[in-house]
């Protein structure tokens, strides 16, 4: 494992990974296909994870891979469920207040970048003898026990909240029974998707084109 006195190879790898992270991060908002967008975001996360591994935070970097792989898969599934045009077969633009957004983005980058360039931070690299995973584990069972436990409880609350909010099939049967057509078969025709209602409501400016 390279420590802080790293060589040229690490620098080159860092440059490539940084470019990859930024370019894919940018492509997320510039691609027509929503599924592609979520996988671009995944690549950006993976690049940052590899940089973390280069920084000797080996556990966090590798953990980033599995966390983000799962999260982005779920993201892609939700894209397919909610977006007009999940595939990018026809171009689309779902952007509002773009000028303000660009301005805010650039301003954010400039402020944070200036902080990075101008501020001086203490130079105390990780000691070579430190085992990052072990120290993290001891911290979680020692001083930060409370954080650890409350994180567990918060996650339980999240689970219950998620189930309450998203499950439409309570223990007494489907909540929306009678108001929506039931599904035909698992993985079959997308029956029960309320597309017709939506077109009638007139809330959308984007229509889904069938080829």
């Amino acid at each position, binding site marked *: *494992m390279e420590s802080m006195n790293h060589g040229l190879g690490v620098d080159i790898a860092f440059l490539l990974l940084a470019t990859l992270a930024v370019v894919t991060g940018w492509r997320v908002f510039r691609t027509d*296909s929503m*599924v*592609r967008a979520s*996988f671009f975001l*995944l690549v950006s996360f993976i690049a940052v994870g590899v940089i973390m591994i280069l920084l000797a935070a*080996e*556990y966090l970097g*590798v*953990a980033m*891979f*599995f966390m983000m*792989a*799962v999260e*982005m*898969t*779920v993201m*892609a*599934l939700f894209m397919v469920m909610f977006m007009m045009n999940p*595939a990018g*077969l026809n171009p689309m633009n779902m952007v509002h207040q773009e000028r303000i957004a660009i301005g805010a983005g650039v301003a954010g980058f400039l402020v944070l970048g200036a902080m990075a360039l101008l501020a001086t931070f203490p130079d105390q690299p990780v000691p070579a003898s430190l*085992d990052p*995973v072990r120290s993290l584990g001891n911290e979680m069972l020692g001083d930060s026990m409370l954080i650890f436990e409350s994180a567990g409880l918060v996650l339980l609350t999240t689970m219950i909240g998620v189930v309450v909010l998203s499950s439409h099939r309570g223990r007494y049967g489907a909540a929306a029974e009678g108001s929506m057509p039931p599904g035909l078969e*698992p*993985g*079959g025709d997308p029956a029960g998707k309320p597309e017709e209602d939506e077109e009638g409501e007139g809330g959308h400016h984007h229509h889904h084109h069938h080829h």
Partner: protein
Amino acid sequence: MFSELFLPVLMVIFMLVIGGYAVAVLDRLVASALGTPQAGRVWLAPMSRGAWLLTQHANATEAPDWRAWRLAPALYLALAASGLAVVPWSASLVATDLVTSVVLWGSVEALATVVIFLHGWSANSLLALIGGYRYVALGLSYILISMFVLIGVALPAESLQFTQVVASQEGLWNVIRQPLGLPLFLIVGLGMTFWGPLNLADSTDLAGGTASEISGPPRLVWDMARAGMLVAFSGVAATVFLGGWLGPWLPGPVWMSLKMLAVLSVLLLLGRLLPRLAPERCVTLMWVVLLPLSFIDLVWAGIGALL
């Protein structure tokens, strides 16, 4: 330089090729032993099929996502390779002996879900897409089981490194110490490579699922990647449950190969013997039956590690 860079690379590629071939041959042997006649000679048939696929004309669909469609099989192969890279052959013969190799294998499982979904998605064909969606349901369910089982073996080793996990089995193998672990982990292996009973992604009721639209060279890469993943999985299973290179008389790598072959044969036999599960039952089974079993496995492992 040679021993640090080229040796690991050569080792992994050699294992991918030999392992993939071994999977094809073993599967045919198992099939003919169970009474399904096999065309051609068992030893030559995989080769001729490979050569045929290599020269076959490749199919295309109307508007696939070309880049993702071609990348997905290659990425799956690369994931199999990185799984094989962390498998130790002896205390010193490891392609890459990462400190967090157990977590890396967990990431390989998670990323495999992404790649298989991408493979089904990118073809722009209904049956392939359904295979992809089904696989995601399965993949997201087995990943937790696998993590619990692997954390269970990390407890006595006090490390997330495969070499340490093997070293901790010096006295007694984990397959005896944590009896629930190996069966649960084998299910994960079948799921990951969508083999046999858990073949939700490429099943015949979907006319081949995610692979229904590919032929020729892409199909060759996809089949090799699946076989390679099965080999990588059996390597990990032999490492964490069967004591890896440990064993009397023979040198470590030989023991390791024998154990891997044993795991492979069990997997292929299970794949041929067990009936295929209905996809909608899978999720309930994984979460309601197998996941609590993996909790029990973890508690068992924890008590065992403290005693």
